[in-house]
């Protein structure tokens, strides 16, 4: 009974080569190689510029006389505290975010809900039509709004203001951001629609059997099941309302940025060439966006139901 003693035909001892990596290490290394483009990009395009902006924000760097740059400490930030223009712009940015994002989300959600009805016909064409305005360049929208509100030949005046006996709207600029916000529901709508269509119908069937009405089903099944999609839409809408590029870029020129703060930063940068001060403003804006984003991520544990990750994928 030699083989029971454990000395029997055992598997050969794995040949340990001192310089060979284990499978796991090899996998990590290969995976890491695939990540190199992003890691390089992160260091070159994000980390270094952000640190540089932070550094510049403590100087009086000006584009036209770089040799006169000196360290000024917190002076730029103190200037910001006394700068009513910057304060108003920052407040305007936050106000736009607070007004536009909930409306965009609600409209996108309502539209996705209508589209998830089996009774709706011609869905592919309608879906594309509702999405279409989201890819129109900002400058084209600017032309359209300027024409639409033209006091002489614009349709708003011809079809609504004149028949009602009202004076024509003189300034169309205030309607440009409204139009942009209204026409930005596309990505959120498609993401929520995709999520709604992936909810298993058995769940609704079970709730119906238990006597849940359509409103109960919406709030207790649809909303929790698609909450990751709602959260994702919230994030991308937040980014674009602060003038960032998320998913879809309309190419807003700086002077017409949706976010007044961004417009103000760019005025400081290009009209006054105060790069040091512009950097300080950008740092302030970055902090505001970071706080808003962090708060949103923190709130997810109360309302977003992320699907459980499989245990075997510990990464």
């Amino acid at each position, binding site marked *: 009974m030699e083989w029971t003693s454990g000395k029997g035909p055992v598997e050969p001892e794995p040949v340990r080569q001192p310089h060979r990596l284990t499978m796991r290490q090899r996998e990590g290394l290969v995976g890491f190689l695939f990540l190199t483009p992003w890691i390089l990009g992160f260091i070159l395009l994000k980390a270094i510029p952000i640190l540089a902006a932070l550094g510049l924000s403590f100087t009086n760097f000006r584009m036209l006389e770089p040799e006169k740059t000196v360290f000024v400490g917190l002076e730029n930030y103190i200037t910001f505290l006394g700068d009513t223009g910057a304060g108003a712009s920052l407040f305007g940015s936050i106000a736009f975010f607070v007004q536009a994002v909930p409306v965009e989300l609600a409209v996108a959600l309502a539209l996705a809900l209508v589209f998830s009805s089996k009774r709706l016909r011609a869905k592919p064409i309608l879906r594309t039509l509702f999405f279409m305005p989201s890819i129109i360049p900002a400058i084209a929208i600017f032309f359209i709004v300027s024409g639409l509100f033209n006091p002489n030949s614009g*349709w708003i005046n*011809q079809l609504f203001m004149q028949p009602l006996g009202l004076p024509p709207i003189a300034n169309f600029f205030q309607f440009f951001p409204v139009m942009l916000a209204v026409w930005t529901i596309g990505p959120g709508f498609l993401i929520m629609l995709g999520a709604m269509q992936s909810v298993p119908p058995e769940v609704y069937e079970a709730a119906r059997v238990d006597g849940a009405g359509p409103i109960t089903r919406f709030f207790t099944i649809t909303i929790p099941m698609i909450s990751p999609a709602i959260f994702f839409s919230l994030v991308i809408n937040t980014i674009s309302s602060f003038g960032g590029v998320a998913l879809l870029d309309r190419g807003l020129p700086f002077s017409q940025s949706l976010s007044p703060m961004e417009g103000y930063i760019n005025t400081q940068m290009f009209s006054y060439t105060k790069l040091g001060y512009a950097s300080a403003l950008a740092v302030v804006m970055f902090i505001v966006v970071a706080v808003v984003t962090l708060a949103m991520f923190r709130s997810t544990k109360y309302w977003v139901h992320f699907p459980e990750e499989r245990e075997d994928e510990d990464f």
Partner: protein
Amino acid sequence: MKTSSPLGRRIRRYFSLSALTFRMWNFTGTAILNLFIWVAIAVYLFPLTYMAVTAVKTNAQLSDSRSPIYPAEALTYAYGGKDLPVYNVPQDDGSVAQWAMIKSTRKTVDWIDTLNPERGVIPWEGSWRSLERTYIPRIELGNFVGLWENLDYPNLLRNTFIIIFFTELGVLCSSIAVAYGFSRFRIPGGKYLFMLCIATIMIPDSITLVPSFVIYTRVLNWNGSFLPLIIPHMFGSAIYIFLLRQNFKTIPREMDEAAMLDGAGPVRTLISIILPQAVPAVVTVGLLHFFNTWNEMRMASLYLSTRMDLRTMAFSAQAFVSIGFTPEVLQASAILLMVVPVVVLFLAQRFFMQDMVVTGIEK
């Protein structure tokens, strides 16, 4: 009893009052829903209707505040070797005649009846300025022709497509590789790297703008070239990485494990196993990047403003407002600006964001 046969019973049930009522409710509900959504889309796209209608109008029609809302042309009548303007003149019997104006003073007009010129000159008294011109529908394409000839459209398109081609290539290759790395390999600390990647989406442009502007113009001397618009995309884009990784994770791992066992390396597995199953996601990301690059204006306005010959479509359009184009030309240029992305969207709508199911941002 014939009526109790299964068919007869089915027919009777079909026409029974309760079934009829149910079907009518059902039909009414469907009709209301579909009607509602078409009304909604009409309202939603109302500004586009304005754009399309105005772009094919003439400036003369826009200047006349009493012209019809549809694209039309003021009618003229050739008489005596001249083109006479035609007006809608109300008659005593309540009808409206279309008379051409031969001669006018402040209060009197000599008309000729366009339908009955043999009647000769009709003298008329009244305030003719309150009369409306006669319009007939006509589509004017001259606005497009003028734009095409005055702005160097072939060159603008070429520049835009050069940028789109190279950035598309770079951003897709890099993002696919990184998404593959994040979705298939157990990398030490990979979870935190991925969260860092997601976090970079939130970084506003403004903060990286100043240093990168200084580096591109002062250090690398890339001002006036396509390089600042192309090179940053070679490193992939965080949001595309996120979307692709989400999609790659839905592809069963068994398939690429089988391929790996057959001796396929990671790159081969990616190309022959993962990518064929991720076509809609890759097409979606490619399209998103296409739309973004087509619309891109900031980088172009920063780095291409010194080189007129390198302008892109969207950037060149920025100048139209200050040039002082009239509304109908502006609408025509808006159409020229958006027609390419819209056509691409409609051609690719079968793939676009079709199975983009976002399950979580942290996971």
